[in-house]
């Protein structure tokens, strides 16, 4: 049987590495995480000539083997550890024809690791337009490797690359730069202490926080015949190494590459002039944002309606087919609505990822980061925080994941902590129903109505609170805060449909798997708590209610009786007692025990609020108009006035604007910050703020 070949795909960001990966593996790929950390691991299988299979691992993009982030550390660990199951037989280094000089730095480092390395020069279709010509045989000779000119966009060069991978044993493993000349004495001492190890690997272990085989930094420091150096000296040596490598690269490219600047044409300068302009740049950015939000709401409303109806139909059909009983009720009232609650968000999330990946693929996102950095830094954030804050208006979960490319840990942490304040799509149904109840449907001036103004105010409130809390956090968090803000401004490209599609599918799948499990579990728990009660008042609800309503029975239709029974059951179920138990706590905010239940159940996910109230007010359908009428008819037991008045309404709106009511967000924050500390702080801060503002609002307005 033919042996599998392990291939690692390595390269700078923005070189089209992912396009090459997609081209080699097609849809034959799995996305997961590296064990114990949240760095995305992408692997796939590629069929080579003569039945050989290659396992392709798409390593995170990196500019060099000197890691400055978690993602980059993964690259070094895979390349250093021969025992790692991902350790490559051959490394494919992807470079971009326009940035060859910079890309070759990484290539020369990998070549020093004794790993056969193939150089792919991607985007070769742009060579003519940019006036670049290359002497490939001379380049191959200088770099001691094979070079493939490739265009992932035009699907050129794939077969050649596959053949080279299959024949990797013929490649030279000789390094092309001798890095040890930067400090001869030091490196000779190092080699004497560890005669059996590769010198460059030892050097990487000394300068980075990585281990390989049985050698780590301490064993090197302990070796008696060898003295290690101070950190600042090491950094100076790393700089020397970089300069040394660039000397070699400049020399090589001088002989093999010619660039005819006169024939180079480009739209970059012209587009930049407009897109990062001090006035136009911002206007265009806000116009794009407006378009995206409008599109997300408009386009996803159709599939969302379909999904809603589909799940209702499924639930009804199953109810009709199966014998009635506990299990059927669990399926039709617990699991199916629970699943529907997840699936309903897929269209919005897929559209959001669609737009974000287009903005990223085209190179525009880097311009937004550039435009917003100064403004965001005033609040302790980075220009890179703008992407999560925008995504947060759809859903906080992908937004928290989108913080990963912020290098500075303090800026990243603050972004993660404040993102849940932005008005996510789950708050929208809650806002809409309460606004329609308590805010008069009148026009304040010509075109603006009080209701739509209130909604806009709530969105603004979310953003302002996010910025305000990040300002506070940046004052209180004591962390080293060196500004390592370096953003590459890639050239503009048309997004590749295949890349965008694969990205949307993978991200949506990750959302369903992650958030889905939690929402499903919570909805089952809720169902159990609402379907069972601790005493006779629950189990004998039919008898009690029927006897209570005896006199007026003739006037009541059968339907009304059933509703009265259901309502009585709920009051005496476990969750009903829980609502009563927290009533003293929420009464100062203007809520009764029923709203208390809705608060408890929407702790897992805000959007559950409307559904819970619908169940409490015994409304069969979830049609808003009917719930609204029921809610409007509710009376405050203390004052005798309508329960949902302006004071209660504003208090509820503020509570939902601030409270951290989303299990999935807590789970993802725990994952991204590696522990319970930050999600718990976030939970208490947000819920505390929600309680206090809602309390103040109710007490002032009542």
């Amino acid at each position, binding site marked *: 049987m033919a042996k599998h070949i392990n291939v690692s795909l390595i390269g700078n960001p923005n070189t089209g590495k992912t396009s090459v990966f997609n081209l080699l593996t097609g849809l034959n790929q799995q996305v997961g995480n590296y064990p114990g950390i949240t760095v995305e691991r992408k692997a796939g299988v590629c069929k080579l000539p003569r039945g050989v299979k290659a396992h392709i691992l798409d390593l995170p993009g990196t500019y060099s083997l000197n890691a400055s982030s978690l993602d980059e550390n993964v690259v070094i660990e895979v390349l250093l550890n021969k025992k790692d199951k991902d350790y490559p037989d051959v490394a494919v280094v992807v470079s971009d024809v326009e940035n060859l000089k910079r890309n070759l730095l990484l290539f020369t480092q990998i070549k020093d690791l004794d790993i056969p390395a193939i150089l792919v020069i991607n985007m070769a279709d742009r060579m003519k337009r940019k006036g670049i010509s290359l002497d490939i045989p001379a380049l191959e000779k200088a770099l001691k490797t094979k070079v493939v000119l490739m265009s992932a966009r035009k699907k050129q060069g794939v077969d050649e690359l596959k053949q080279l991978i299959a024949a990797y044993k013929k490649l030279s493993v000789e390094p092309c730069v001798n890095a040890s000349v930067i400090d001869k004495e030091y490196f000779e001492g190092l080699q004497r202490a560890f005669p059996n190890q590769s010198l460059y690997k030892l050097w990487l272990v000394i300068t980075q926080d990585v281990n390989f085989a049985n050698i780590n930094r301490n064993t090197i420091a302990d070796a008696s015949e060898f003295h290690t150096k101070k950190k600042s000296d090491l*950094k100076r040596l790393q*700089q020397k190494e*970089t300069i040394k490598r*660039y000397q070699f690269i400049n020399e090589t490219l001088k002989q093999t590459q010619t660039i005819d600047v006169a024939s180079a044409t480009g739209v970059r300068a012209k587009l930049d002039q407009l897109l990062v302009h001090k006035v136009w740049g911002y206007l265009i950015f806000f116009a794009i944002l407006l378009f995206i939000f409008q599109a997300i709401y408009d386009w996803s409303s159709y599939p969302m309606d379909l999904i809603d109806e589909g799940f209702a139909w499924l639930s009804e059909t199953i109810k009709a087919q199966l014998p009635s009983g506990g299990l059927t009720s669990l399926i039709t009232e617990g699991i199916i609505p629970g699943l529907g609650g997840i699936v309903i968000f897929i269209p919005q999330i897929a559209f959001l990822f669609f737009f974000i990946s287009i903005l990223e693929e085209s190179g525009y996102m880097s311009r937004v980061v550039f435009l917003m950095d100064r403004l965001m830094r005033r609040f302790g954030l980075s220009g890179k925080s703008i992407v999560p804050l925008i995504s947060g208006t759809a859903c906080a979960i992908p937004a928290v994941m989108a913080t990963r490319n912020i290098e500075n840990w303090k800026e990243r942490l603050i972004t993660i902590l404040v993102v849940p304040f932005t008005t996510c799509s789950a708050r929208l149904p809650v806002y809409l129903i309460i606004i329609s109840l308590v805010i008069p449907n009148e026009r304040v001036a010509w075109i603006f109505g009080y209701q739509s103004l209130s909604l806009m105010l709530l969105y603004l409130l979310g953003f302002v609170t996010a910025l305000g809390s990040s300002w506070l956090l940046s004052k209180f968090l004591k962390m080293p805060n060196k*500004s390592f803000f370096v*953003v590459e401004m890639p050239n503009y490209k048309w997004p590749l449909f295949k890349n965008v599609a694969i990205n949307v599918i993978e991200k949506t799948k990750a959302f369903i798997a992650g958030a889905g499990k939690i929402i499903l579990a919570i909805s089952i728990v809720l169902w159990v708590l609402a379907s069972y009660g601790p005493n006779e008042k629950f189990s004998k609800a039919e008898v009690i209610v029927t006897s209570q309503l005896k006199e007026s029975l003739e006037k009541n239709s059968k339907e009304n009786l059933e509703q009265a029974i259901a309502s009585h059951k709920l009051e005496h179920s476990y969750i009903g007692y829980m609502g009563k138990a927290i009533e003293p706590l929420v009464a100062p905010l203007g809520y009764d025990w029923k709203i208390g239940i809705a608060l408890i159940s929407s702790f897992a996910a805000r959007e559950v609020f409307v559904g819970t109230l619908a169940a409490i007010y015994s409304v069969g359908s979830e049609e808003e108009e009917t719930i609204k009428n029921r809610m409007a008819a509710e009376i405050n037991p203390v004052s005798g006035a309508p329960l949902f008045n302006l004071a209660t309404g504003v208090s509820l709106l503020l509570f939902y604007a601030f409270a951290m009511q989303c299990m999935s967000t807590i789970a993802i924050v725990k994952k991204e910050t590696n522990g319970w500390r930050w999600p718990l702080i976030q939970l208490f801060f947000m819920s505390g703020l929600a309680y206090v503002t809602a309390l103040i609002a109710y007490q002032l307005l009542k």
Partner: protein
Amino acid sequence: MKTTLAELKRGQSAVITMFETDEIPLKLLEMGCLPGNEVTLLQVAPFSCPMYLNINGSHLAIRKEVAKQIEIELI
């Protein structure tokens, strides 16, 4: 007084002469910000921060406080 990258005007080019080693992230060096290399200021955001540069063929944006650590000679 020495001229630093932070004083470059839009459209101006210069050669990097030296920099304060400990204040510069290694990543910037790896992207081509090395003594002897040419640098052009392409665009600036309001209040001239961050700065959008072409350094040795690499297009990148850095903040002004890092640019202040890089000494240049105008050409």
